[in-house]
């Protein structure tokens, strides 16, 4: 009984601490940028929006990218947690099973071949990217079905690495045959960017992201047991095959939504889960929400750096996350070693 109330206290502390961090980041980040804006003017409704530069900088340039950063950061972080538990591998990340590579291939095909369509205000590149991630998810899912017939986690992991390499080779082939302009635009896309400049792509990404989080909510207990071992999980009454499928599909959906919105933003999905585990321990009931909230705050902060460090020129956010995440991860590895 004391145990339970103790856990409830930890849950409340975790939620409120990380929640405050995420909300604080969401509120503060739109106020900072390469130019200074007057909030009173930005929120002055008596001025027509079409002429109000301060309002446009706030609502078109900054707010969408803060929201996009929150969505992408939390999606990638939770996907990372789930993949690490599912594959029982601390090095697993949202990129591991090839969903990112599928999303990248879709985007690069759309850029190179000038696909020119849009759906509900979302343009061709993010749509093709999400389709690509879905294709990769299909392959991963097929693998998981095969896996039910006695294939090991190691095989799934190897298959994911192979799929990533395969799709990566196709990406490079397309870049190689493309004209110089397209190649430049694809390279730029591959560095990641949260400057979405509209709300429609965020709304579109919210759909698969919500479905994914619907899956994640059912997972904490099962992930705790699966990350120890499938046999003991099955012995404790977990429907291992079903939980693994939910985990796989949810994490892949979140990854696909994130990558199609912002491009491949490296290292968020690997650094955030490890950092969060250092703080709250290994219990997935704490790790999952804490990662979602901390991931949002982390990516908002990285994007803030990306757009202010060299202002008015911006750094691609993927470079910032890797430059901060890379050294940190190395330190983590050597500290453990």
């Amino acid at each position, binding site marked *: 009984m004391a145990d339970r109330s103790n856990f409830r206290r930890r849950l409340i502390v975790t939620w409120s601490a990380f929640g405050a961090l995420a909300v604080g980041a969401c509120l503060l980040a739109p106020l900072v940028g390469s130019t200074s804006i007057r909030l009173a003017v930005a929120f002055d409704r008596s001025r027509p929006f079409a002429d*109000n530069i301060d309002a446009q900088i706030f609502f078109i340039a900054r707010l969408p990218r803060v929201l996009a950063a929150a969505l992408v950061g939390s999606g990638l972080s939770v996907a990372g947690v789930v993949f690490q538990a599912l594959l029982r591998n601390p090095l697993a990340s949202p990129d591991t099973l090839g969903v990112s590579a599928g999303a990248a291939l879709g985007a690069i095909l759309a850029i190179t071949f000038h696909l020119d369509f849009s759906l509900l205000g979302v*343009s061709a*590149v993010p749509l093709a990217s999400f389709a690509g991630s879905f294709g990769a998810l299909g392959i991963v899912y097929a693998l998981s079905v095969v896996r039910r017939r006695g294939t090991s986690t190691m095989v799934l992991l190897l298959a994911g690495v192979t799929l990533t390499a395969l799709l990566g080779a196709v990406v490079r082939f397309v870049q190689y045959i493309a004209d110089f302009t397209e*190649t430049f635009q694809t390279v730029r896309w591959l560095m990641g960017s949260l400057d979405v400049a509209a709300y429609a792509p965020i709304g579109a990404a919210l759909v698969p992201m919500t479905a994914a989080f619907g899956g994640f909510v059912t997972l904490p207990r099962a992930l705790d047991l699966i990350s120890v071992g499938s046999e003991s999980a099955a012995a404790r009454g977990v429907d291992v095959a079903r939980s693994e499928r939910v985990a796989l599909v949810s994490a892949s959906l979140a990854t696909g939504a994130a990558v199609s919105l912002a491009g491949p933003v490296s290292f968020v999905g690997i650094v955030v889960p490890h950092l969060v585990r250092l703080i709250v321990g290994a219990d997935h009931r704490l790790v999952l929400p804490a990662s979602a909230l901390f991931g949002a705050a982390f990516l908002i902060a990285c994007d803030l750096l990306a*757009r202010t460090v060299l202002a008015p020129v911006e750094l691609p956010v993927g470079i910032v996350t890797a430059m901060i995440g890379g050294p940190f991860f190395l330190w983590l590895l050597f500290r453990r070693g």
Partner: protein
Amino acid sequence: MNTWIRLTLLWALSCGAGLQPWLEASPDTRNTARIQARSRAVGPPASRPRRIVSMVPSTTEMLFEIGAGDRVVGVSNYDHFPLDVEKIPRVGGLIDPNVERLLSLRPDLVVVYDTQVDLKRQLERAGIPIYPYTHRNLADITQTMRSLGARVGLQEAADAAAQRVEQRLAATRTVVGGRPRPKTLLVIGRDRGSLRNVNASGGYGFLHDVLEIAGGADVLADMQRQSVMMSTEMILTRAPDAIIELLYGATNPSRNLDAERGVWNAVPSVPAVKNGRVYLLVGDEFVVPGPRIVTAADRFARALHPEAFK
């Protein structure tokens, strides 16, 4: 990854896209001196080359313009102008020259981009004279025409052709001279159907120079680099009076220009958008720093100052 990005940027350069953000800009005078020195320093003296391979689209166009087109026996994969080049064998691009095919053409002069270090070394080993080419700003175009003309033994024709280019540019400058110069954003790339990854010409390079001749004030004139990635916030704060967006490459003309122009309505406070001064120009002459640059300047000027041409 880093190497790959650099290679891609160099690739872009070879085709004259002017995407050279991270490469150092050396003083213009030094480049001019290099171009002048090239006609005498490289290759055996006074031999008049008969079989020329040009690895760069802009030098191919220059060779045709000065009357050496019938001696061009090989071009790069990226050459599409003039139409005659479609019949000439292709020998690869900037980062993947096909040395075997190049040698089989038995050239007695190869025009290479200066960064093609391996190719230069291989050609030197094979005893084939080279003309190393780089381009940076507008003045380099006519400088190179003159020096390349001297190298292929057509000094007079080259001088005349270079002079024609200079005269037509001066004429454009005169037509729009004295008129108010709109702050202009020159966009050279962006994602289809959205304002993402907007890549614009910075305050350095031939596109910047052409824009200034055509009566525009470059809104990024203070940024001394050939290209700048523009964030939405930067577009809003720089508030250009006019936006010229260049569309080029093989697959472009089929695009729905009105829809692409409409994408800019996402930033309604930008004066160019508010006043309907977003111009989408389709054509390859904008990205090849060769003699067709006069057409590019003329089209910029007509877009920015239509009243001057009535």
